[in-house]
Structures are given as C-alpha cells and as structure tokens.
C-alpha cells in the first residue's frame, strides 16, 4: 500500500506493458491470438509468473501488489485467462513443497507449461487412512487449461485438513458450465480417488493455514479483476456520456447523470483502497489478512456491482445490449460476487472477526 517511489515506478512500467499486451490480445481485440496455450506462454514470457514466486524458486520476490497490477489490467479488458491461480495461489503452494519438488513446477510455471487451477473446497474429504479423495468442489476456473489442480480438503478445520496438488489427469467428474460472464468453469466430483503421498503438500494445521491463505488470496485476486473491470467500465461510460447528446445537450452535462457517475467514482475509489489494504495484508498475519480480504470481497459484491449498474443506467439502451461492453463488465462483477465465497459469507466473517 505504501510503496516506495522505486516500487511505484516498477508498478507503472509493469502496468503499461501488461496493458499493451492484454489490449492487443484479449477477446475484444481484433488481433487476438487464437490459441489460449500460446497466449499463456506469451504471458509467461513477459515474466508475470515470476512476480509472486520467491527468490529461492527463481522468482523475483513475492510481491502480491504487483500481481494485483496484472489482475487489475486483465480485469480492465475482461480477459478470460485464468491468471489468478498461477499468479497468486501457486507461489505459496510451491513454497510449501520440498525444494526438489517445487523447482520443476516453478520452472514450468514461469515457462507457461505448468498451469494451475484452484479447486475450492465445498466438503471434500480424505477417507481410508487419508488416501482416498471424495466429494464435490465449488466452481473452479481454468480447469480446461490447467495441468495441475490445487485442492484444499477438509479446510473447515485444522483437524484433518490437507492441501493437495493433483495432476489434471486425475480422475474426476467435471460438472462444467459456461459462466454468466462467458468463461468456463467446472465443479469437480471425486469418488475415492487414490492420492499419492507426494501429492499432499501439507496436512493438519499447516494445510489449514495454507488453505486459508489461498482462499483469501483468491478472494482478493478476483476482486482486483473486478476493480479493473469496474474502473474501465466507468471510464468507458463517462466517455460515452460526453459524446451522446439527448434533449439538446451531452448527457454528461446533466446534473443527475454527473452525480450518478460521481457516486460510482467514489465507490470504485473506495474499492481500490480496500484492494490496497488487502494486497498488503496478504503478506501479513492471518487475522488481518482475512478481515481485509472479506472487506474487499463484500464491498466488490455490493458497491462494486452497484457502481457498474449505475453505468448501465446512465448509458441508457445501449448499456443493455450484448455488443456494448458495459453489460459484460456487469456480468464479470456479478460472477465474481458469487465465486470464492458470497458477499454475505464474507460480510459475516468480517463481522465475526472484528
């Protein structure tokens, strides 16, 4: 949050280069690269997956705030690449592995050949001497592209928790779907899948803590994407309002419209503040981290969504057409409001922690 001048300059350079790449290659771009895997490797070549990795694994320092720059920029163009898991969640998982197991994965991550998906826990359990995995997950993003799955099990309590890293070839029934915002996702169902010992990253207290960190990081990262989307949506709307004339004057000149956009601006600025706090807190103690993550997630799910709804309203009819971008921004925020814990769950957790 309080970044040195040096870090701020680095952030700006990173933002510029990410924005250029993403704008040139995203789904809204006419020059989009067709092959998701090739595009992913191009991202890897830009060094994005080194940002969050520790030095020991060949990364450049593990700064969540820089990962947020990427995610925010990806959100701006409504990118559908499942960046979150590789950028934010893989680093702590790899750091928890023995170096000899972690290094090849870290190398692959940075090369773009190893791609992670986060499979959120919704009552997964290990039976039979903690070797057989059963149960159903919540919706997981990026299952189609992933080579490895990050799977927290029994993460509701330290007792019996485990954090698994499974190959994407593992047997699981995929209840796949296209999400409201057009991305694909799937809930995985495991039926007594044998889990090899080396697939277990952590057990017990350590797994519980790692799963909590990952869940918080996912909530924060998803909100960073939402923030980017909302911020770009506001800019798009304001620009449209300046051009569009109704009743003999630009829409942007009407006081009611001005106030609507000012309110959305306030909400997005507050959301950015919460993101800065949460990004900072990801590296800190679990209590404040959880509070900050839940505050951000809850705010994004209510006020963030409302800020974008107001943009649709101010845009008028065009705002509700499929071809115009603001509706897609709304769908992205609505989608993120449902993923990684609902607004009410996060609000309840935030309240209970205070």
């Amino acid at each position: 949050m309080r970044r040195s001048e040096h870090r701020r300059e680095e952030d700006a350079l990173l933002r510029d280069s990410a924005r250029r790449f993403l704008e040139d290659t995203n789904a809204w771009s006419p020059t989009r690269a067709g092959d998701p895997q090739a595009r992913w490797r191009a991202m890897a070549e830009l060094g994005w997956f080194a940002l969050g990795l520790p030095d020991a694994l060949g990364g450049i320092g593990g700064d969540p705030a820089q990962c947020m720059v990427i995610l925010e920029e990806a959100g701006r163009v409504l990118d559908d690449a499942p960046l979150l898991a590789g950028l934010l969640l893989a680093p702590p998982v790899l750091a928890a592995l023995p170096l000899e197991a972690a290094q090849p994965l870290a190398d692959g991550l940075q090369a773009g050949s190893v791609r992670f998906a986060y499979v959120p826990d919704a009552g997964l359990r290990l039976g039979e001497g903690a070797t057989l995995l059963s149960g159903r997950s919540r919706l997981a993003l990026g299952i189609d592209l992933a080579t490895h799955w990050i799977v927290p099990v029994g993460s509701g309590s330290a007792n019996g928790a485990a954090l698994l890293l499974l190959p994407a070839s593992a047997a699981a029934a995929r209840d796949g779907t296209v999400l409201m915002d057009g991305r694909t996702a799937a809930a995985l169902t495991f039926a007594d899948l044998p889990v090899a010992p080396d697939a277990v990253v952590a057990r017990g207290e350590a797994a519980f803590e790692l799963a909590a960190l990952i869940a918080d990081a996912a909530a924060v990262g998803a909100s960073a994407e939402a923030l980017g989307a909302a911020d770009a949506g506001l800019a798009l709307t304001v620009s449209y309002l300046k051009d569009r004339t109704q009743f003999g004057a630009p829409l942007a000149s009407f006081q009611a419209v001005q106030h609507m956009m000012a309110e959305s601006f306030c909400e997005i600025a507050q959301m950015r503040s919460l993101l800065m706090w949460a990004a900072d807190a990801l590296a800190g103690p679990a209590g404040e981290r959880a509070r900050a993550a839940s505050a951000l997630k809850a705010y994004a799910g209510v006020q963030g969504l409302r800020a974008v709804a107001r943009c649709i309203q101010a845009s008028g009819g065009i705002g509700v057409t499929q071809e115009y971008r603001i509706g897609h921004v709304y769908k992205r925020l609505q989608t993120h409001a449902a993923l990684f814990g609902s607004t009410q769950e996060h609000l309840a957790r935030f309240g209970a922690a205070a």
Partner: protein
Amino acid sequence: MDTFFSDAEQAFRAEVRAFIRANLPADLAARVRAGIHLSRVDMARWNAILDAKGWAAHHWPQAYGGPGWTPIQRFLFEAECADADAPPLSVFGVYLVGPTLYTFGSAAQKAAYLPGIRSGDTFWCQGYSEPNAGSDLASLKTTARKVEGGYVIDGAKAWTTEGHFADYMICLARTNPQVKPQAGLSLFIVDMTAKGVSLQPVITIDGAHSVNTTFLDAVFVPDDALIGEVDKGWTYAKFLLSHERTNNAQVHRSRREFTRLKDLARQVAGPAGGSVLDDPVFQRRFAALDVELSALEVTVLRVLADQTDGREPGPEASILKVIGSELQQRISELAMDVLGEEGIRQSHGQVDGDAGPAATEAAGWAERHLFRRVVTIYAGANEIQKTIIARTVLGM
C-alpha cells in the same frame, strides 16, 4: 390485501382462478416459469384461449369486445394470471395499440385490426424510439412524406421488441418539419412485410433476441394507415404512454417472482446450515422487499379505484413506473444472492431430477436478472420519470 376487495370481487377472483386452472396448458406455465422471452406461438396460444372466453382484451370497452370489467376486476384477473404463471399478453397489441385504435382510429381501422389483436392472430410492435433519440422522443428523425395515395416513410426505429415476429408496427414519424418538434409528428400503421422494412436483431445483455433495430427505407403506406389526424401523433403517443401506467408497475409479475423466490430460498442450503431463508439476514431482506411490494400493490389499487370511480388519476399514478421497476431489479438481485454459485452457471450438470431447485431455476433467474437492467431505462428512463414527478406533481 384481502380487506380491499368486496365479496363480489372475491367471487370474481375465484371464478378467474378456476378458469385458469382448467384452461392454462401446463407446458406453457412451465415455460413461463423457466424463462422470459416467449415465442409468438406461446403467446398466441394463451391469447386464443382467453379470447374464446371473451377475456383477451380484458381492459377494452365492451363495444370493442372487452368483458366490461372494472379496473379492480382487471387487477384481480392479472394477479391470478401471474400467480398461475400464465404468459403475459402482448404488451403492444392488447395494451397499447388496441386502446389507441379504438380511441383515435377510423371505423375501418377498428374493424380491420382489433379482432386480430384480441384473438392473438396478429402481433404488433412499437416504433417510437430511434437510435439517436432514446428517451427524447421529441427529437425523432424518421420522416413520412406525403405522396399520391399515401406516405413514404424513411428512417430507423430502435428497440423494436418482438419486431421479428410482429405483423404490424405502430410508427411515429415526422410529417411536418416546419413546426416545433412535438407538433409535426403523425402515427402510422406499418405492415412489417412491406417493401423497405428490414430488421437487425439486437442481442441484449442476457444473450437473448427479443429486440431489434428496424430500418424503414422508402416504405410506402396507404392513406388509411394514418391513425387519426396528421401532425397529431405526439398527442396520441402521449396518450398511449400514459394510458396503461399501472401496467408499468408490473406488480403482479413482481409479486409472483417474489413468492417463487421465497419458496426457492426455503429449499436452497444457506451458508450457516439450514436453508437460505433460515438466515435472519435474508429473512429481513425478504421482509423489507415484501413491505415495499405490498405498498406498491396498494398504490396500484388506489390508481385503479380512482379509475373505477371515474376520478382523475391522483399524483400517485406517476410513481408506479419508478417504484415498480426498482422493485423488479431488487427482486432479481436478491435472487442472485440466494442462488450463489448456481446463479452464475449458464448450464447445469444434472438438471434432470435430483439437481435441486436452485439448479433447475437458476438459468431463468440469471437471464431475468440481466435483462432486468432494462426496466429502469425503457418506457422513459427513471431519471426522466423523476424529473416529470418534480415538475408536474411538485411544480418545481
């Protein structure tokens, strides 16, 4: 709200309910429950059933084939239809074009068009708004030039809902460019199969096709396609827009959706065990919404009671669109919160049987929720409605 209705009205309601129970096809009701954009065939089927009973054009005068109901009876009829998940009647034909024709149309127009609207054989769309005139109808650019035996219409119309299966458009066009903007407009009936009419589908935020842009390229309409007098179209259009203001409240549909959502919340697992509706926070949100919906129901009834008794509509008529549309959005927003992850799935793995109520109903709610952003924009954006309330009701 039972205390509001007389015994005779309660009996009427029971009769309507019995008729619907006996005559509404189950597959039609199921489709209404599942989605929002019905096909022409779906709507026509129900329209014909009602027409056979004499109830299709239920708010028209008896002289034009209406059943002669009071506004309160119409309210009860609509409430029962919504409760039973009956398809809505075509907004444009039955609610807007019919009243315009029997009020301002010629005898020949009435004879030619009213029966088809009643029976559901013909469908209509509305040609008011234009690509460059959203809520600002006075700035319309479409022109109708007088020629031998008729008019030639040129221009484009935006947001023509159901235009792709409509037989006719009721079209506002400029016949006189010399006078001030509102004064030189006329209202025409345009045959959608006429030469020069073409449509471009507009896919809306929910991914569905119910709206179009309609291009009118030198479309000839005969003299008898003019409704009422030339250059008076603005007056007729305003009449049309204000005529069915209570319809804009969409109070029956909202009540039905609210009830269904509450049923759903009883069945969906909540975050803290039990159902969503066992969560006191959700309970209170449902209650707060129910309070506002109840208030809106009474407000609609107040307006209808004035109509029944032949009084001028009170100022409360002006708030129906604003309140009604906001409540529609709040219901679907609450639905998304109730549904959680199920609400953002466009498909569900096991919808056949044991997937649970959330999975079965989720897709419909999500589509409605997205499309619902439109209700505070169309029919005069709510900001415009508020300005109208301030100026005309409060005199500001």
